[in-house]
């Protein structure tokens, strides 16, 4: 196989796809939904589910306008502030957020405390306490305790995040059905396949070139989406979790191994479907069958039959790889000059 020919075909197809607004919408909207909308909808689940709450959480109206970081604060009154990594002594704090700090002989009211140690005769009122350690000499009045169980939190967060993988795998599975329908059926309906087949290229070079032009943008969209997703999840959860929950090995494995396998399955299925249908929409409808293995995995995970651990994913990968081999074989058999000109509808 001559890769210069493959790359010429791939570049031409990508240039054509760049001018197709339907392809561009798909390449932008789907990753944005997965990278932005899904994390934001899952963040509250992580916030609440990772912690055990005792007492009614207090409605707080916090609008911090000033930040104190890495300081020793003494005999001070602070209102509407964000306080991080500070040691606060003999002070009064109202309507503020306090992170990773120590309070000594301090009064707090209407605030949120996260990872804070309360010692010496301090008093906390009307506040929400996330993972706060209160010494016996101190008191709390009308406060809600939200405590993490150090052993369970990681497991809970992993379960929640792993369930998002299945949504995420929709990107490499679904985007190729849209692009491939234009690339293969589009070229067929445009009758541009015949002059292309008359060039001194092999069937394999044309097939791989056209497939690459679908695979490359799909995987770029998947990777960018994953990076944005990781940033949003990590930035959004670090203050309450104290660690960065993604990327995990399961995520990395899914993005770099399962993702490409789904993309290949989707592309190959579309090549096969192209021979049977005569318009782009029909091709997209048939092509969407590719999400069936994904739905199967979702059902098994929801029913609790499997968990999304590396072990199960390896088995699932084998299953997807076997389907890939079958469909790729069919697509190679389908994408031959003689077949295209004689048997394609």
């Amino acid at each position: 196989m001559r890769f210069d020919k493959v790359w010429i075909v791939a570049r031409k197809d990508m240039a054509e796809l760049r001018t197709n607004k339907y392809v561009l919408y798909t390449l932008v909207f789907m990753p944005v939904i997965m990278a932005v909308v899904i994390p934001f909808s899952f963040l509250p689940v992580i916030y609440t589910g990772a912690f055990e709450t005792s007492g009614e959480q207090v409605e707080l109206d916090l609008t911090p306008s000033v930040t104190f970081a890495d300081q020793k604060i003494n005999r001070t009154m602070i209102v509407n502030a964000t306080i991080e990594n500070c040691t606060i002594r003999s002070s009064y704090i109202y309507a503020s957020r306090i992170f990773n700090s120590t309070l000594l002989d301090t009064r707090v009211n209407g605030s949120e405390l996260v990872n804070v140690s309360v010692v010496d005769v301090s008093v906390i009122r009307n506040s929400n306490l996330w993972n706060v350690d209160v010494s016996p000499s101190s008191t709390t009045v009308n406060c809600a305790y939200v405590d993490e169980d150090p052993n369970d939190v990681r497991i809970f967060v992993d379960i929640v995040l792993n369930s998002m993988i299945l949504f995420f795998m929709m990107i490499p599975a679904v985007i190729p059905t849209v692009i491939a329908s234009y690339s293969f059926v589009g070229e067929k309906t445009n009758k541009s396949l015949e002059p292309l087949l008359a060039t001194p290229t092999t069937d394999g070079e044309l097939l791989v070139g056209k497939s690459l032009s679908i695979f490359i943008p799909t995987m770029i969209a998947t990777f960018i989406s994953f990076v944005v997703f990781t940033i949003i999840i990590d930035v959004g959860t670090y203050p309450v979790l104290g660690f960065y929950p993604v990327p995990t090995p399961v995520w990395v494995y899914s993005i770099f191994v399962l993702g490409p396998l789904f993309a290949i399955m989707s592309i190959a299925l579309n090549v096969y479907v192209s021979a049977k249908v005569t318009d782009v929409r029909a091709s997209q409808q048939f092509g969407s069958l590719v999400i069936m293995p994904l739905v199967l995995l979702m059902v098994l995970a929801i029913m609790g039959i499997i968990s999304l651990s590396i072990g199960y994913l390896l088995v699932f990968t084998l299953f997807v790889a076997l389907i890939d081999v079958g469909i790729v074989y069919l697509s190679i058999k389908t994408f031959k000059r003689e077949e295209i000109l004689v048997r394609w509808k």
Partner: protein
Amino acid sequence: MIRTEELTRTFNGTVAVDSLSLEVSEGEVFGFIGPNGAGKTTTVRILCCLIGPTSGRAFIGENECGREPDSMNIRQMVGLLPESPGLYERLSAYRNLDFYGQLYGVKDGERAERIKELLTTLKIWKRKDEAISTFSKGMRQKIAIARALVHKPRLLFLDEPTAGLDPEAARTVRRFILNLKKEGGTIFLNTHNLHEAERLCDRIGVLNTRLIAVGSPEELARRYWGRTTALRVKMLTPRIAEAVKSLDFVGNVQEQDGELLISLDDPDERNPAIAKAVMENGGEIQSISEFKRGLEEVYLKLIGGST
């Protein structure tokens, strides 16, 4: 340049091309005419190594169609204009040609020069950066022809090059083909347009699954109609017509627009005797010449229609 030996192709038991044996020389413009479904496009596809024959063999130069690596060599040697232009609508005219130039392995600088030369000749250079979707049907056909020529093929296959074009666009395309002919290119032309075939082709093959006849337009007319003398007489009377018909060497005699069309084996030898018979019967000859039958009449006679 092209040689086929008993070339046959069937599709699900239906014969598309039946035992086609043919030779086309280098520098020749060869036309294939025949009704729809006669096997013209199938023949071109076999010769361009797009599909294989069911039986028989076909050669382009020394390369055999359907055999590797010969097929790859053939695709490099030939240019194809299929029935539909099949251009990339979203890409510019230049990008379309550039893509094919790259696939045919034309070097960068040479490719740019060649594209400029072709688009300038076809008067499209100013619109080279516009998307094909903005072009008229005639312009698309010109781009498709340029695409077939971008790698300077030794053999050009044109499948219905003027089908569906308006008269002006069709004339431009025909002129372009005539120029290619003058430059000595070998062209294989499939067409329904008999006047076009007559004007452009050195030899014509009449195909209706089987090859019915091959020859130059004049040869075909002579072979299937014999030679015809057109005789114009000042006052054509039944007596004169009868006198001509009664000559034993005369075949068919037709009266058309005041002329007598007389089928003969050898007009050069027999015309004086005809003139003598006319004058003896009181006729005054205005003109006597050879009547040339058009390809259309030959075609209809061969394909089974009536003239």
